[in-house]
């Protein structure tokens, strides 16, 4: 995150503004990815009118960054109507898609609307691997063609890969593919539980040795000399776990309001209650906001307390939003070789670590004007 964006995000937090919203327009999908955490049946998506009303409420509440995702967003027949309205309301629009349905016409329209970025899921450079993960023959070719269409329109594209047992040998080739296509690339070793709590997808996580290698792989921003962790000091004890519920939130296709897409604690439903009313008055959201590191019984005593990327949502899905996220404990162990307080208490040998976010972001020179401040690459 750029310094300016961090400053703006801090300001949003001080003002209590929901700066960043992730809205899933549908859970339906034209791919059937083995690691997906969603139920793809349509259980009653919000209508066009409901979504437009929600967008207006969000704009009025001060939402700036709006990520539209799914499911596959292009399966909604009203997708461009929604996107046009989002542009009219001057959101910073970001999309997540498998891009299978994007052709020249769609790419051109996205350019005209002024979408800030399009994240496309690519799991391998080899069709036999990618298509086996999506379970749709020909999906890799169509997604790559779509990336070319999007690039030809001058749009910013980000390839999003997920580290799994089935594709762990291809991560460097995917990165090279991204370079050849002239796009950015992210790699997320997080295979999360399904939103209904089913944890069987976690078996797809790559092993501990793969994650340890990744942490030391300079091509992915890793560093062989991972410093030993420092115990948390007073300022860390007062720090916030993450932005979930503080400056960001998630809305499902059915209107459910969660702190984050990975934090399925329902705080209300925008079909029954105005967005800003939930944001300001939900008791559950207030509880999420109240949590500091010092309130976490295990993590506040852990040597990784100041460096851990503990996800409150994953902790919640483990059963306690004030508890540890074992997936993050395993990650800290892979990075440093030192077990967390949680792992020591459970006397477990860490299995495959799971949660990190490594992003390859090219450095772009920022512009600064005499009367305005600017920061490039504001993701």
């Amino acid at each position, binding site marked *: 995150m750029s310094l*300016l964006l961090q400053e*703006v995000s801090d*300001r949003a937090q001080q003002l209590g*503004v929901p700066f960043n919203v992730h809205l899933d327009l549908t859970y339906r999908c034209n791919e059937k990815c083995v690691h997906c955490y969603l139920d793809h049946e349509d259980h009653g998506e919000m209508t066009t009118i409901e979504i437009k009303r929600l967008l207006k409420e969000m704009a009025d509440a001060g939402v*700036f960054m709006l990520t539209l995702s799914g499911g596959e967003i292009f399966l909604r027949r009203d997708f461009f109507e929604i996107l046009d309205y989002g542009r009219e309301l001057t959101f910073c629009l970001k999309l997540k898609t498998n891009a299978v349905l994007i052709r020249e016409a769609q790419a051109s329209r996205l350019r005209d609307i*002024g979408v800030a970025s399009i994240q496309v899921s690519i799991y391998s450079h080899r069709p036999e691997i990618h298509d086996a993960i999506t379970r749709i023959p020909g999906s890799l070719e169509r997604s790559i063609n779509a990336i070319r269409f999007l690039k030809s329109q001058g749009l910013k594209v980000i390839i999003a890969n997920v580290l799994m047992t089935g594709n762990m040998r291809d991560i460097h080739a995917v990165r090279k593919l991204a370079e050849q296509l002239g796009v950015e690339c992210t790699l997320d070793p997080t295979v999360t539980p399904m939103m209904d709590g089913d944890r069987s997808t976690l078996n797809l996580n790559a092993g501990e040795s793969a994650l340890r290698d990744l942490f030391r792989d300079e091509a992915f921003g890793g560093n062989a000399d991972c410093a030993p962790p420092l115990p948390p000091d007073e300022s860390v004890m007062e720090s916030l776990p993450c932005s979930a519920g503080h400056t960001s939130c998630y809305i499902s296709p059915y209107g459910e309001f969660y702190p984050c897409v990975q934090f399925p604690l329902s705080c209300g439903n925008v079909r029954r209650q105005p967005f800003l009313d939930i944001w300001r008055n939900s008791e559950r959201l207030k509880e999420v906001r109240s949590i500091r590191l010092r309130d976490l019984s295990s993590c506040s005593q852990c040597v990784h307390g100041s460096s851990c990327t503990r996800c409150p949502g994953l902790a919640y899905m483990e059963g306690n939003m004030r508890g540890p996220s074992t997936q993050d404990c395993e990650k800290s162990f892979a990075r440093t070789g030192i077990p967390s307080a949680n792992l020591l208490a459970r006397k477990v040998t860490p299995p495959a670590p799971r949660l990190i976010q490594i992003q390859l972001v090219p450095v772009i020179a920022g512009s600064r*004007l005499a009367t*305005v*401040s600017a920061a*490039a690459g504001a993701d």
Partner: protein
Amino acid sequence: MTKQLYVARSPRIAARMLGEEMLVMSAQGSTLFTLNPTATVLWQNADGATPLDQIVESKICRAFEVTPDVALHDAEALAEDLAKHGILLISEQPISNTNSPEPERR
């Protein structure tokens, strides 16, 4: 006689008031700008129909207690800077077909 300039918000930008600041992000280059109060007034009144000198006289001079000549000179320079980054349009003719309603203050 100096030609009149018209300014309009670009139709492909993101913008939102955050407190007293205006955030603007151009789709072109994903560059985030925060506008100071003077630039914010210019931005909010860039409707494509009102000449820049009128915006300066009626909005900027009144709000910031600055003389019209100085303010217009600065506003023209600012408008050109914003135009270079694709977040403002400048023309010697009125500009139509810009998208956005003025972003609301939060």
